[in-house]
C-alpha cells in the first residue's frame, strides 16, 4: 500500500516525539534499527545512511568527548588523566543522548528520503501559509542540485579566464568571494524573473485553487494519522505528569 505523504509525515513525527518523551535506551535503539530496516526495504538506504552518518557521527563524537572525558557530576571514575575523568555516568549519559538523537534523526530522515515531494506539495493546501511553505520547501529542494551545477559552471568560466585557486585560507576566501558574487547575483536576478513569471500565473491569487496531481487519501490512513498524533500527545502528557510527580 502506498502511504499518503501526510501519513508518513505523521508517523515520523510521532515516532520522534514518543522516543524523546520515553527517553529509554532500548526503545531508542529499537527505533533506530526499525528505521534502517524500513529504509533498506524502501530502497533508500544507500542515500539515507551517508546523510545520517554525516549528521550523527560528529554529534556522537562530540557527545562522547564532552561527557566521556569531562562530567563533573560523575561519581564512578573509570580512568583519569589530569583534568580528564572518564566516568560511568558520563559515558551512560553520552550513549543515552546519542541513541535518542539518532532515533529521532533516523525516523525523520526515513520520511524525507522516501516521500515524493511533488505529492507532499500537492496535498498541502496551495493557498495562504501552507501554500507558501510548500513553495519554499519544494523550491529549495529543486534549487539545491541546480545550484551545485551552477557553482561548477562559474568555476569553469573563471578558470578559463585564468583564475587559479591557490592553497591557503586567504586565497580560498578570495576565491570564495569571486565565485559567490556571480552566484548570488544571478540567483537574485533569476528570483526576480521567477517572481514575475509566478505572479503572472496567479501565484498570489486569493481565490480557491485546484490541483492537477491526484493523490488518493483513503479513509483508513486519515484515521491512522489521527491515532498517531493522539499517541504522540499522550506520550508528551505522560512524561510531563511523571516529571511533575517525581519532583
Amino acid at each position, binding site marked *: 500500500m502506498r502511504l499518503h505523504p501526510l501519513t508518513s509525515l505523521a508517523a515520523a513525527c510521532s515516532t520522534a516525539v514518543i522516543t524523546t518523551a520515553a527517553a529509554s535506551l532500548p526503545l531508542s535503539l529499537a527505533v533506530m534499527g526499525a528505521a534502517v530496516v524500513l529504509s533498506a526495504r524502501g530502497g533508500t538506504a544507500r542515500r539515507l545512511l551517508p546523510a545520517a552518518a554525516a549528521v550523527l557521527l560528529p554529534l556522537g563524537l562530540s557527545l562522547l568527548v564532552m561527557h566521556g572525558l569531562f562530567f563533573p557530576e560523575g561519581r564512578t571514575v573509570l580512568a583519569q588523566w589530569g583534568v580528564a575523568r572518564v566516568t560511568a555516568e558520563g559515558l551512560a549519559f553520552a550513549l543515552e543522548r546519542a541513541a535518542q*538523537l539518532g532515533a529521532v534523526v533516523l525516523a525523520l530522515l526515513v520520511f524525507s528520503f522516501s516521500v515524493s515531494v511533488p505529492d507532499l506539495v500537492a496535498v498541502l493546501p496551495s493557498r495562504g501559509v501552507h501554500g507558501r511553505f510548500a513553495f519554499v520547501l519544494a523550491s*529549495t529542494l529543486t534549487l539545491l542540485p541546480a545550484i551545485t551545477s551552477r557553482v561548477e559552471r562559474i568555476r569553469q568560466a573563471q578558470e578559463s579566464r585564468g583564475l587559479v585557486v591557490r592553497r591557503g585560507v586567504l586565497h580560498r576566501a578570495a576565491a570564495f568571494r569571486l565565485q559567490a558574487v556571480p552566484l548570488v547575483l544571478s540567483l537574485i536576478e533569476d528570483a526576480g524573473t521567477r517572481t514575475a513569471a509566478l505572479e503572472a500565473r496567479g501565484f498570489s491569487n486569493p481565490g480557491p485553487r485546484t490541483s492537477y496531481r491526484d493523490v488518493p487519501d483513503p479513509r483508513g490512513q486519515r484515521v491512522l494519522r489521527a491515532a498517531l498524533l493522539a499517541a504522540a500527545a499522550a506520550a508528551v502528557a505522560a512524561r510531563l505528569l*511523571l516529571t511533575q510527580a517525581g519532583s
Partner: protein
Amino acid sequence: MSPSLTLPAPAPAAARKRRLLEILGAAAIAATYVYLVLNQPADITGGPGSASALIALSGFLVGAILLIVAVLPTLPASTVVLIPVALVLNIVLGQFVGSTLVPFYLDAIGTVLIAVLAGPAAGAATGALSSIVWSFFNPTVLPFAAGAALIGCLAGLAARHGMFRRLYLAPVAGFVTGIIGGVVSAPVAAFVFGGTSGVATGAIVSAFRSMGDTLLAAITKQALISDPMDKAIVFTVVAVLAYALPRRTRLQFPFVRRHRVLAGTSPEQGS
C-alpha cells in the same frame, strides 16, 4: 463581471492579526527561555532529561511556527521567491563549514542577506524556515528555529538602522547579534542535545566542563565565544555581497529604498 486589472489597497485588519501572531510567537520563545534558565532543571545531566528537552523543543518550535504563520502570508511574492534562494545559500555554506574543523557555522548568510534586502519580518521568517526545511536533511537543526528567526530579525533591524551603510559597522552589528542569538540558542543545545552538534564546538564546551561548569553554563560560554565571531563574519560577507550587487538590483527592494539600507543611493557608483 471579470476581476479587476488592479489590486485593492491592503486591509488594516489583516495587519492587526499579523501583529498579534508575531507577539504570541515572540512570547512563546521568551517564556520558554525564561522557564528553562530559571528552573535550570536538575535533570539535565542527572536522570532522563526528556521533560526539559520536550519543553525546549515545543516552546521554541511553537514560537517559530507562530512567527512563520504571522509573517509568511503577508510577505510580497518577490520575497517569498527569494527565500528558497537564501535557504540554499544557508544549507550549501552551512554543510560545507559544518564538515570542517572550524568552530563556526556560517549557516546564516542567506538569512542575513534576506533580512538586509527585505527587512526584519522577512529575515525572521527566513531564519525559522531555514531550520525547518534544512531539517529535511539534518533534523538536528530543527530545535534552533527560534534562534535562527531571532538572528534574521536582528539583522533586519540592524539594516534598518543603518548598520550596513558603512562596511566597518556590519561586523559590529553581527557581533552584538551573535551574543544575543548565542545566549538564546544555548538552552536548546544543552537540553535537547546535551552538548553541541559539531566536534570543534564540542571541544570548547569540554574545556569549560573540565573547569567544573554546569552543562548550560559551559554551552552558553561556548556560544559566547563562537556565535559573535561567527555572526560578525556572516554580516561582513553579506555586506560585501550586498555592495557587489548592481544598483538596479539593490533598489528593486522597497525596504532598501525606504530605509536607505545601503550607502550610495546617490547617482554615482558605490565603489
